[in-house]
């Protein structure tokens, strides 16, 4: 069995995995980080989105061995050491952007990536388009869109440009 070094949320783990093990399986089953979810088997739902290096990836679509050495951030690694929430987590709560919570980890990880990639601002249409890769069956997306717009100024520490509203 190949040995792989997975660096997740700042902690390194040397683990043995079958070569065919998906990153999401290694996170959930080998490392016990069950916050990252599996909602489909065709890379459609986005419940398994994590940060890998400077990319946002669906962890069902790469192998654990491909993540060798790269820093990985999962939903468990977002809050500060003192437990205070990441602005995106806080705005999801503030705007009731989650119901059953199953899509939430992937949705939050994708939303953070979306906001980070758009320092120039984000319109509602851009937010909706940016969520193409994440499915939610509960909320109708309305409050997720609101939460992301509300998190943008907190993450960029400036007001969301009016033109982008």
């Amino acid at each position, binding site marked *: 069995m190949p040995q792989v070094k997975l660096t997740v949320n700042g902690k390194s783990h040397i683990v043995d995995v079958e070569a065919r093990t998906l990153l999401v399986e290694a996170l*959930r089953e080998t490392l016990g980080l069950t916050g990252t979810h599996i909602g489909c088997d065709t890379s459609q739902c986005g419940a398994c989105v994590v940060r890998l290096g400077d990319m946002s990836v669906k962890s069902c679509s790469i192998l654990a061995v491909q993540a060798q050495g790269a820093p990985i951030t999962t939903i468990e690694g977002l809050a500060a050491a003192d437990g205070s929430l990441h602005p995106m987590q806080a705005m999801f709560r503030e705007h009731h952007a989650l*119901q059953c*919570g199953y899509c939430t980890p992937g949705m939050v990880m994708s939303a953070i990536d979306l906001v980070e990639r758009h320092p120039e601002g984000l319109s509602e249409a851009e937010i909706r388009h940016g969520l193409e890769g994440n499915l939610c069956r509960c909320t109708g997306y*309305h409050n997720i869109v609101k939460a992301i717009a509300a998190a943008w100024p907190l993450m960029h520490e400036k007001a969301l440009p009016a033109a982008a509203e």
Partner: protein
Amino acid sequence: MKVDGIGASIKRKEDLRFLSGNGKYVDDLTRPGQVYAHFYRSDVAHGVLKRVDAKAALAMPGVLAVFTGEDIAAAKIGGVPCGWQVHSKDGSPMVEPLHPVLAIGKVRYVGDAIAMIVAETRAQAKDAAEALVVEIDALPVAADLTAALAPGAPLVHDEAAGNVCFDWHIGDKAAVDAAFAKAHKVAKLELVNNRLVPNAMEPRAAIAEYDTSSGDYTLHTTTQNPHVIRLLMGAFVLGIPEHKLRIVAPDVGGGFGSKIFHYAEEAALTWASPKIKRPIKWTSDRSEAFVTDAHGRDHISVAELAMDAEGRFLGLRVNTKANMGAYLSTFAPSVPTYLSATLLAGVYTTPAIYAEVKAVFTNTVPVDAYRGAGRPESTYLLERLVDIAAGVMGMDKIAIRKKNFIPNSAFPYQTPVALQYDSGDYNATFDACLKASDYAGFETRRRAAAARGKLRGIGISTYVEACGIAPSAVAGALGARAGLYEVANIRVHPTGSVTVFTGTHSHGQGHETTFAQLVAEQLGVPVEQVDVVHGDTAKIPFGMGTYGSRSLAVGGSAMVKAMDKIILKGRKIAAHLMETDIDDVEFKDGKFTVAGTDKSKTFGEVALTAYVPHNYPIEELEPGLDETAFYDPKNFTYPGGCHIAEVEIDPDTGTVSMVGFTAVDDIGRVINPMIVEGQVQGGIAQGIGQALLEHAIYDETGQLLSGSMMDYTMPRADDIPNILVGTESTLCTHNPLGAKGVGEVGAIGSPPAVINAVVDALRDYHVTHLDMPATPAKIWAIIEANRPKMAAD
């Protein structure tokens, strides 16, 4: 108003764990020594199971056992039961074929489980499935309603002649015939209610384990109703008494009805657990979910509405064919009948209604309740028919509705199809929705869209539904095989904090917050002092679970009843402490006060006294402050309202854009407006999905063509508009909260609003109806077919 009580949009208690990745869903759990099951499933829709040879599979690495239908037959366990019995017109009971836990003799749909392989790892179990030898002699297939009802159609079950499960009716046929005989005009419509896949984001999963010392079974499973699973599986399938069977439903990632039902996998895992002597886990793949989770809807109906010269509705005649799939799922027979046809009066005074429903077996996944369960079907039929009636009469769509609304003075209103509506104000929700959606300004918006080359349409749906399921005696008379009350246990701890044990289950609805608010309000304690426990038969006295928008109306009412007992006992304790008569003690805002004095005891002081009974009326009163109540509702509850959709169609591509959606609903008492808005928005997104995107399509061989999330169009963020939600509530008159329920209204009210808007947008294209989903291909074909005619005009 208490800042965290009834009516406050406080943030949810459950959010912190879900946002931190600390939710505990079934697949997140790992039991010591856990092994994995994989189900080998039929890839043909109908066939004789000739041979299942497990020899090679058993020799694969890590494989512990392979179980087949032969093992199930030898074990003489029961079939998967159906919880509702419907009778045909002639009084005969529905045909109820055995639904074996693993296929015996025949396979009847793609996805039917043939074998369960248990191995040390998930991958090993799947690898071993590749080595299983299965021979099936394919039989002709009845893949849909039309094929199953055709003369000489292949029989799904030999005992169901013509594939008919039952042929049921309701209403007064003669009165309806008389209404049509004197009708000024008749509106007629044939329509399909498209088959849907519920697709809760969490796939189903279960872990069964057996304690060899105690003989106790524990099943962790993704269910909306753990006690119902215990009853169905324990009593009807496996013969395990309640005290030896614990069902745990931890965090569950959405249900929408699909997790009500008792599924064969739960029984197979539990049955095998003493044989394997280790916990056995199974987690559905999404592809597996598409062919095993009960589907929703799938009705074909013909409806006729008779009207007088003024456009008053005189009579309604409906004939529906309902697909049951290959086997009867838990609630399946009730969906097209008592949950649908009984709502054909809608919000209108139609005096005579007659409906027939033929339930039909097909070689497809079982069909059962999906968000709204029967009410979306009747609402869609009625609200499409009313729009067509307006056209037939040359009347305005608002005017024809207003002319026929049940007036406020008529409540309680007895419909001609069994139900008695207790309250409502259909003009209030209608007028508020017309205003909020700026209906009056639509023509301006339509012209502006036309100038941009777009076809803009607006659609109305006014609806009522029946939920708060259900008065047990009524449900029993209609065929339910269980009571439908709810149970609450309110445990006040010595220092005054409270744990609420509820038989309902939260899988996204936010009960941990809403119920805490309700209890905090009634007992006058801070909401942080109240925790809600659900989803474990070992902790909760009893319960019937969450479906049919029942959790607050029925479960919340049980909490009120239990709190009434707490408060009564508290008053007795307080009267003793303050040396007065109980009749002089009032309870308000968390204080027991001697009326007309400033003498009082706090809720906490009384709670402590109950557990430290040094100065206590011990002769008359037991110590402790812990009460349980069962609440059986007196009637269904009747949420209603108005939904208005606005769409724009691109005539070049047929693409529909949802440009506006407004809902004003009457849902009775609201505990947390933020959560209510979220429930309505989510339901509407599913309704828009049904109207524009979603369709479970089988080919003629019974293969599910839209069998993955790449093929089945789930609504995504850019398919859904901003959804404006309002409430105009009247209170339910027969439960202590005045609550009606909100979980399903969005999915019930919205599909006809969307299709009415699409048809309105196509007003120049000679179309009065198109079946859901209104895909670009269908719309483009309509536009294209009319282009020459338009030019000739």
